[in-house]
């Protein structure tokens, strides 16, 4: 018998199009509703049918927010799943499924619980119910609430008619009873405490958090060209466009998408584009225009491995350098990288105030891992989000590029006020007209690239230190690796190790330097060169003593970080 306690990782694997997502949805929703903390993340191939996709669902008594490598319970829906995840399987892994989906060579290494999924599905009426049966089994093993499963199935399949709903409920019940039977017979033992609190928490994905944050921040225009893994944000926004009274437009290409958004901002709207590396590359020309014209813009850049098409559906923190250096000429920008789903919400909202206030491009740097991750979280505090508008009226004599002390000119918009607003991508005078005057060019360059940058830097928030201030070792992480590193440090259990997490990447507040003094610095990044470590070197002259880097297109796991930290520290 295998016993699992408090924190389990359930992995489902099968071909694209086999309905794994349905099982994932049933499980995460109903287990959360049954009072468990849940976390889910998927990895998938760039294809519509076939291949092997997997989903990891962590079910825990504690809040869980990080990817783990270990698999406690594995449900394969086809042959090939076990070899695909072989390095995540151990002797304590329980595989539940049909024999034909488990390769011979694994039978000795795992605990195999054979369940006749196909036969059970056919008994219900069709092979189609296999997924629901599998979901039922897992819910049964956790003694989850069957009524929740039923409610969910009614919602999910309601539009397909009563019969489909009834059959699915029947299938879920069959699975559920089998799950309970497995427990009773002692085939597997699961002890996870329920937390009543989790029941009414919000189950939200990273992509949804970015979209909702943007909406809370006043986004009323979103343009995009579909590209994995950034499209989820556009899908969510499009589906709610009418209710929110916003425009969501799929442009002919990324060039058009960002230029539309620039036009919308020029006319007073809060606009965003959502894209990934290759799309952002196309947008760099317009990014430069935003820099010169001081046209605000918010860009959601969901990273995936490059160069070029790279690994379209996988993850990497490889586009920081692109975000930092994109565009020709010198102009300031702000780069944010949410560490978790809450931050994805709050920072996406804040991005609009920043763009509006400083009139610069604000890039929200997420990645496939973050946008495709979801878990239950407590309240999102909408009151915390304030929409700060910085638009002025164009009164007679208005000058779009008025030279000011802090490098920020009051921004008027066409049609609000009697006078006109002239914006310009050429070097310009205070009114916005073209100039080739040397002295004026110097003043305008300094306004943008020095004075404005200084103002932003001064107001930039500091990184978050998790752990003691006097820790000897500082793990430097940014963006979506937050909770993975955090959990690894927790498991490491040493007081002399702290995490310094950056979700505001650029420009860095000069005060941030103090966190590094006298410390052993370990940079953890999901890219091959340590792009953020290089940025720290450039900005502060700080050298990371160790770099923990991964670049196979997969997220870090808690175990990997833990192993690497042990290697460095002990």
């Amino acid at each position, binding site marked *: 018998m295998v016993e699992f306690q408090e924190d389990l990782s359930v992995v489902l694997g099968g071909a694209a199009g086999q309905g794994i997502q349905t099982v994932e949805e049933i499980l995460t929703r109903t287990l959360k*509703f049954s009072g468990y903390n849940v976390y889910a993340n998927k990895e998938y191939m760039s294809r519509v049918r076939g291949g092997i996709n997997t989903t990891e669902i962590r079910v825990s008594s504690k809040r869980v927010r990080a990817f783990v490598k270990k698999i406690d319970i594995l449900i394969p829906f086809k042959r090939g799943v076990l070899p695909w995840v072989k390095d995540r399987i151990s002797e304590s892994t329980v595989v539940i499924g049909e024999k034909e989906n488990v390769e011979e060579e694994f039978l000795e290494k795992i605990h195999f619980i054979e369940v006749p999924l196909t036969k059970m599905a056919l008994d219900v009426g069709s092979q189609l119910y296999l997924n629901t049966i599998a979901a039922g089994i897992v819910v049964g093993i956790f003694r989850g609430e069957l009524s*929740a499963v039923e*409610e969910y199935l009614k919602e999910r399949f309601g539009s397909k008619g009563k019969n489909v709903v009834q059959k699915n409920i029947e299938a879920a019940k069959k699975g559920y009873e089998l799950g309970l039977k497995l427990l009773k017979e002692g085939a597997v033992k699961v002890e996870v405490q329920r937390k009543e609190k989790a029941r009414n*928490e*919000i*189950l*939200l994905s990273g992509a949804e958090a970015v979209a*909702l944050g943007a*909406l809370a921040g*006043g*986004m*009323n*225009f979103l*343009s995009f060209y579909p590209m994995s893994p950034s499209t989820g944000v556009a899908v969510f926004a499009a589906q*709610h*466009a*009418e*209710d*929110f*009274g*916003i*425009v969501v*437009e799929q*442009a*002919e*290409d990324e*060039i*058009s*998408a960002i*230029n*539309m*958004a*620039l*036009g*919308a*901002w*020029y*006319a*007073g*709207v809060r*606009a965003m584009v959502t894209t990934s590396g290759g799309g952002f590359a196309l947008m760099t020309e*317009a990014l430069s*225009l935003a820099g010169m014209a001081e046209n605000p813009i918010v860009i959601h850049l969901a990273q995936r491995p490059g160069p070029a098409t790279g690994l379209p559906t996988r993850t990497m923190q490889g586009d920081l350098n692109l975000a930092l250096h994109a565009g020709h000429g010198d102009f300031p920008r702000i780069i944010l990288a949410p560490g978790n789903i809450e931050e994805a919400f709050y920072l996406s909202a804040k991005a609009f105030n920043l763009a509006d206030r400083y009139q610069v491009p604000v890039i929200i740097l997420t990645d496939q891992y973050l946008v495709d991750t979801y878990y239950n979280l407590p309240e*999102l505090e*909408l009151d915390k989000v304030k929409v700060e508008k910085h638009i002025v009226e164009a009164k007679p*004599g208005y000058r779009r590029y008025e030279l000011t002390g802090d490098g920020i000119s009051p921004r008027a918009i*066409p*049609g609000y*006020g009697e006078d*006109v*607003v*002239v*914006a*310009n991508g050429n070097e*310009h*005078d205070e*009114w916005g*007209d*073209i*100039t080739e005057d040397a002295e004026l060019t110097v003043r305008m360059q300094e306004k943008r690239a020095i004075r404005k940058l200084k103002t932003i830097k001064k107001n930039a928030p500091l990184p978050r230190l998790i752990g003691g201030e006097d820790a000897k070792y500082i793990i430097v992480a940014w963006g979506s690796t937050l909770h993975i590193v955090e959990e690894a440090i927790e498991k490491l259990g040493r007081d002399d190790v702290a995490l310094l997490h950056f979700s505001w990447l650029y420009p860095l507040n000069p005060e941030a330097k103090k966190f590094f003094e006298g410390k052993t610095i370990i940079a953890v990044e999901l890219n091959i060169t340590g792009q953020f470590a290089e940025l720290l070197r450039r900005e502060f002259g700080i050298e990371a003593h160790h770099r923990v880097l991964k670049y196979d297109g997969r997220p870090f796991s808690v175990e990997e970080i833990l192993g690497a930290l042990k290697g460095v520290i002990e």
Partner: protein
Amino acid sequence: MNLPKGREAFEPKRPGSKDVAWCPGCGNFGIRNILISALTELGLRPSQVAIISGIGQAAKMPHYINANGYHTLHGRAIPIATGVKVANPELTVIAEGGDGDMYAEGGNHLLHAIRRNPGITVLIHDNQIYGLTKGQASPTTMKGMKTPTQPWGVFEEPFNVIALAIALDASFVARTFMGYFRESVEIIKKAIEHKGLAIVDIFHPCVSFNKVNTYAWYREHTYWMDDHDPYDREAAFKRAIETDPLPLGVFYINEKPTFEELVPAYKRDKTPLWKREPKVEEIKKILDIKRRL
């Protein structure tokens, strides 16, 4: 301070707008005067108009007319103008640029703008040459013309934007020659008043780099379509493929809903996007759903 009225209102007083970059005798001057007349005759005020231009000599228009303006990137005036219009449909939005701007770098955007049909007016200063970069062939340069970069003579087929736009069932398609002042003013007024995307190809000479398509050439090689029904697409297409003399006038009008009318945002509420506040209640609704099953 009272701002001037009428035609005078569109004459810029800003210091930087005095130094006009166009060559003496350039057709752009004529287009500027035509546009100012059209805007004045339509009773518009500078604050109600936004001229979005790309790059090039034609694209300098926002500096020589007093109106809201955004001088942007080569080929990108149309998407930017689309964003402006959807943000604030109350504005009269004009996208302006040369033949390179709109047909070469911006070609893809023009095609898709025709599909999207935003209520903007696209004015193309078509002098059949690249002027600012000193005389290379443009997408409308005639076959056989020798240039510094096509010393063997252009062998590519010139772009027939009129035929293309009609083929794509564009909303409003016209061509004029800036040498005909009154006719051009009337065409541009019609284009601005037209509800959907209006494309006006405006012939004008480049006195410095195009020695073929001169003022005289345009007069000799064009004619006005006096007996044409712009609502007849087939007839419009037939006219569009005539090559010499080239027809001038409104080729085609196809009244259809605009982008701003069709986007869900404006279905129930006509308030311009820029005046809207975030709907926190809707976010709460979504979060409540995410809290349940």
